[in-house]
């Protein structure tokens, strides 16, 4: 339990520094048990250095939809699923997937790829709602790998 809390604290610190967010905004994110598409895009795209750090959620969502990184039928306030978020992260960070992802790029194999990279820990399932704390952990892994050059 202590390790988990320390990890969460470190990722919060990473979030504040890397994502350029205020502590209040980070608190709100960590308390969110069902992150929306717009909120997810608002954190992923700046973390991947595609948009500026202070981009509004609506603009981030529009940018992600224009690129085809979120379903065309999704509304900004809809809850994003874990497999949909996996696809957003794979695309935003240009992560290389497995053979199946290369042949059939989509949320199913994006989820599998993040699972194989240990980005997703604990109980997980493709259709799970994404919590704010999990979003921070996944982005932390993606930023770590980009720094190492993987």
């Amino acid at each position, binding site marked *: 339990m202590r390790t988990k809390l320390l990890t969460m604290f470190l990722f919060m610190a990473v979030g504040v520094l890397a994502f350029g967010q205020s502590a209040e905004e980070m608190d709100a994110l960590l308390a969110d048990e069902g992150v929306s598409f717009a909120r997810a895009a608002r954190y992923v795209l700046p973390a991947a250095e595609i948009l500026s750090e202070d981009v509004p959620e609506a603009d981030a969502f529009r940018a992600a939809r224009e690129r085809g990184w979120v379903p065309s039928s999704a509304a900004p306030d809809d809850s994003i699923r874990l497999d949909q978020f996996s696809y957003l992260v794979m695309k935003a960070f240009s992560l290389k*997937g*497995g*053979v*199946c992802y290369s042949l059939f790029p989509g949320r199913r*194999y994006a989820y*599998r790829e993040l699972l194989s*990279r240990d980005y997703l820990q604990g109980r997980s*399932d*493709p259709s799970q709602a994404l919590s704010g704390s999990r979003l921070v952990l996944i982005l932390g892994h993606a930023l770590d790998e980009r720094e190492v050059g993987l």
Partner: protein
Amino acid sequence: MKRVALPFVFLAACALTAWASDFGLALSGAPKYGNADGFELTAKATPWFSALVGDRGSLFLSADFYLEMEEGEAQFQFDMGRFEYRLVTTSGTTLDFGRFSVADPSGVVVSGLLDGVRLELPMADSSLRVGAYYTGLFNKYENYLCMSAADMGDLDTFFSSSRVLAAAAYERKNLFGEQGLAVEALAQFDLRSEGDRLHTQYLVAGFSGPVVPGLSYNAYGIASLVEETDKDPVLTGAASLDVTWLPPGEAADRVYGQVRWASGAKSDTEGSPFLPVTANPQGAIFDPRLAGLLAVRGGYAVRLSGKVSLDASAGTFLKMGEGQPFTYDGLSASPTSAWLGVEAFAAARYMPASDLALSLGAGIFVPNAGGAFDAGTDPSYLVSAAVLISL
């Protein structure tokens, strides 16, 4: 088939309550060629399904479909793979039900898939684990559940012999410094209704932990009682030692050593060798179970570039006690030496992608011809390959 269907129906019912799921198919092909058995090919398809059940449960189902080609003949086999329902409570207590991986702390008595139920209670620096398992629902020809000659007696029977295994374990981390203690008591009961029965009990105890930074070990001793029909109980023993050294430097490599010992019988008709529940092979080419055997192995493994890993090892074997605790072509009926021979094996594994793995292995076993083996027994060599893709 009714015996197989019942737990599957239960777990399928759990699947109906699942509110989230994933599924897939793993395909593998493994050709191999050796001078002993010629060319063999095993192609396997493993469909699987996983789901979260409620807020605390999870379900995993899989099945194995094999096509085996041996000596020019193809045979189709089927067995249920891992199927497991797991429930984790808020206090961390874990309940497993179904077919899942079971192993005692040493890995010597039992190591493999078993059907049953297991409860694990975590405490501050320790845990308590109890379980009950059954062996009679497995495909007899595709697992290592063979303890006695009677187990393989009826070749027309699909299922393994009926045995029940009860186990209770206690593990304590950081008992003194970083050393951990593990103790487990196991009891195996033979449920066959006719013929000779074989019951066994085991007490496993040992320690594990770091010696110095980069050097760690696991060391276990096992005392076992073997009870056969119309025979006095026999006390037997076994031991295991694993040492791993991570050399300093940037390379992701390790040097490892392993010793496995199991007592043998006093004579052809008196006593009994140590008998493990799962007859896991102790070598890559020379593959006896750990019964009446001393096996010593050392090796080196390294991971290169994150996609390629290499492993090379060599070992030697000695027979313990008398009688025939294991079978292998060429073993002498009247050996003049306990030394069985030496084996070397090397393997390379390449994972170009997260869902694709390729491996290649080659090795040789040089028997002690004229000693433990019949004079003129040739060395055995084996070349193997495998490809695995996950869809």
